[in-house]
């Protein structure tokens, strides 16, 4: 197994999951890159979360935890899942097909939506949009329950086209008209949710989707050039076969899994950074009958993916979850995860509560002077804790290189254990200087664990470590 194999596996696991400690990377590399891709794409082949254990100790996760409790539960899942791509695709769709806690009657409703993303999110985009159209969290969030025959509310119809499927435009042209928005809204009239059971005295229950035929506008509509007595299902059928939808899904997948793209509002006039890659993904979208797993298989096995190491700035969720996986903390339910989870919010990503229906802007927009400090403080605290089992393992592996280490061995060992990171020459020189500044580096010395921890902390404070 070559260093290159480990480096590529680290790249894959950062993107298709939340990173992995070195021993897992080695085991996966031994199994092979393509075999690992196939395993990731088939999450059902791996064991599910042990929900009974989670809820035994975190009693509140069973029914009605508020926003912080649900963020904590999701973070626990992301840390401990044996199906990393399933959890990653839920995070992906949560950032695209947005609902928000600020407008959610029953907080657990969003967790049910995440369950849908887990089960349908790697399947057909057609099925995903159908499910989303009937998702009570979405129906309430975008007011479709307030859209009536003869008195439409356009919110759902508009965002479905603008932010969830077609996008405003591409190649300088608009993808739909204002009339299309209105016609879509008409088609979805009558798609609503049941009145909820109020909070008092025992707590809320989830809402259910319902179709009210009396409130449905069954008259003729013209949508994206087609005419008929369309209902919501027909609208989705028409949407998914549009070239613009293929472009939209391809660009989002590329932006999330491959490399930072310009943000969504710029997509009408700004071409993709790698049009050839996008075209391959668009073709696969149609060839596979809108299948997300097929698109991801192509993506993960492509050269454009393999050559895209460190071309993305990690999101706050990736930063926090990836670090906790690395240091081996919270592998079993215990108190304290709630306060760690809040770091995702402090870094600018309030999971389940995005700032707008457009979700979060990504890439360099994750970083400002405040969030940068939060990132460095959090990651440095974690990798600097020599009591964490994952940190102990790293110290042990690095120390295994010999009783006396060179500065290069210390720096390279830390970089490898953090996920085969690479540094700019200047950064590397500074770290080598730091490593050599305390004289001999002896793995049997009492201060060796602290030396390693200090080096790990220095690396996670670099610009390079912001990237995945």
């Amino acid at each position: 197994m070559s260093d290159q194999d480990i480096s590529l596996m680290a790249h894959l696991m950062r993107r298709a999951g939340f990173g992995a400690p070195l021993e897992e990377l080695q085991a996966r590399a031994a199994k092979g890159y393509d075999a690992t891709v196939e395993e990731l794409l088939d999450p059902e082949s791996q064991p599910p979360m042990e929900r009974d254990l989670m809820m035994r100790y975190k009693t509140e996760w069973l029914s009605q935890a508020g926003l912080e409790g649900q963020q904590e539960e999701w973070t626990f899942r992301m840390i401990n899942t044996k199906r990393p791509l399933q959890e990653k695709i839920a995070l992906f769709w949560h950032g695209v097909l947005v609902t928000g806690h600020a407008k959610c009657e029953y907080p657990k409703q969003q967790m049910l939506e995440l369950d849908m993303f887990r089960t349908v999110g790697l399947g057909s985009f057609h099925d995903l949009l159908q499910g989303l159209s009937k998702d009570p969290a979405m129906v309430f969030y975008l007011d479709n329950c307030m859209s009536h025959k003869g008195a439409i509310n356009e919110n759902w119809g508009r965002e479905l086209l603008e932010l969830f499927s077609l996008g405003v435009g591409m190649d300088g042209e608009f993808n739909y008209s204002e009339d299309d928005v209105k016609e879509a809204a008409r088609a979805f009239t009558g798609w609503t949710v049941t009145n909820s059971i109020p909070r008092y005295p025992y707590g809320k229950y989830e809402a259910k989707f319902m179709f009210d035929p009396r409130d449905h506008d069954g008259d003729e509509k013209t949508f994206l050039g087609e005419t008929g007595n369309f209902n919501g299902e027909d609208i989705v059928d028409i949407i998914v076969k549009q070239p613009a939808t293929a472009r939209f899904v391809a660009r989002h997948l590329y932006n999330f899994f491959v490399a930072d793209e310009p943000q969504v509002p710029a997509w009408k006039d700004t071409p993709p950074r790698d049009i050839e890659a996008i075209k391959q993904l668009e073709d696969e979208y149609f060839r596979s009958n809108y299948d997300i797993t097929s698109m991801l298989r192509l993506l993960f096995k492509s050269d454009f993916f393999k050559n895209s190491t460190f071309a993305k700035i990690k999101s706050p969720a990736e930063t926090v979850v990836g670090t906790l996986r690395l240091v081996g903390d919270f592998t079993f339910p215990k108190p304290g995860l709630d306060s760690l989870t809040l770091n995702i919010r402090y870094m600018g990503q309030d999971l389940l509560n995005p700032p707008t229906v457009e979700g979060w802007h990504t890439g360099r927009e994750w970083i400002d002077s405040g969030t940068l400090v939060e990132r460095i403080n959090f990651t440095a605290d974690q990798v600097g804790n020599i009591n964490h089992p994952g940190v102990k393992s790293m110290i042990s592996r690095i120390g295994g290189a010999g009783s006396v280490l060179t500065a290069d061995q210390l720096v390279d060992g830390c970089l490898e254990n953090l996920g085969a990171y690479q540094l700019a020459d200047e950064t590397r020189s500074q770290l080598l200087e730091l490593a050599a500044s305390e004289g001999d580096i002896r793995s049997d010395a009492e201060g060796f664990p602290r030396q390693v921890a200090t080096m790990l902390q220095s690396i996670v404070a670099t610009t390079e470590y912001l990237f995945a």
Partner: protein
Amino acid sequence: MTTEISHINVQYRKTIGRGEQFGPGFTYPIFVARGKEGVMYVLCRSSEYRPEGTRVTVCTTDEEFISTFARGVAQQGPHEYNFDDGSLVWPTCIALDSQENLFISDEWLNRISSFSKDGEYLGKWEERPGAGDGELDRPSGMAFDSDENLYIVDSGNHRVQKFTKDGKFLAKFGSYGSGDGEFNMPWGITIDSHGDIFIADWRNDRIQKFSPDGKFLMKFGSSGSGDGEFDRPTGVAVDRDGVIYVADWLNNRLQVFDQDGNFVDAKTGEAGISKWGQDKLDANAEMWDERERAQGLEREKDFWGPTGVTVDDEGNIFVPESARNRIQVYTTQSPTFAGPRL
């Protein structure tokens, strides 16, 4: 179909409680202990981020509020656990001694704390995390025997340990496994009138019965959702007639068995509006209107997360539902006979 005749008739009686972080009400109630003169002590687990809800609510079975005591403590940080004496993090069970002092297990602190019935903090056993004799790893269910020795389900060590009331180790039985007398993360415990011990063997989806000295006597149940099957049983109780009640957690039901472990009945919940619930709704009258318009209100009857079961000498069966902030009360109807028994 032939009507099945049983002498065990369990019926819904009423619902107690409402969701409340303070005062009259519960926050994720996880266990009920019955005191004397109609008093009940309800252990509210709440959560680390709502520690004000972690407490014991004291009330009567007629829903007269008496007091609350004990407390959760806001955590100082992810790896800082400076919890003061008398505070609770993951409280799981209450055992009452003969003076009605409360002994409370805490699965996180590996601590047994005691309080008087008036809420005065009496003390704690010195924390002793570990797997050796007398050491604890996530202590959950607890029960006193007639000699006031305390049996503790040591869930993380997959065993039961017996202590004096002041915490001196006496005996232990059980180990990890699925064979007779073995456990997989057991939870609830009860001791019947003969001194025999029943354990909710949580991850083995069964109930096991032992003699007072820990000898295996019988077991019943297996994984599933059919009659007599369990999905992670949390609590077990035995009434004065030997009828066995099991809180069947993820099947959301109460199951009833005869003294030999034969299935008798299953109750999926019939909750109505409690007295405190009525007060809350009357104070927020618009909620009555919302309830009128709500669809699927019948769901409110169903058990959701029954985490324990407790019986009293009056034939009442109390089932706390952590997910619903309430306790459903059932009652056993026993035949009465005039004149001398044949």
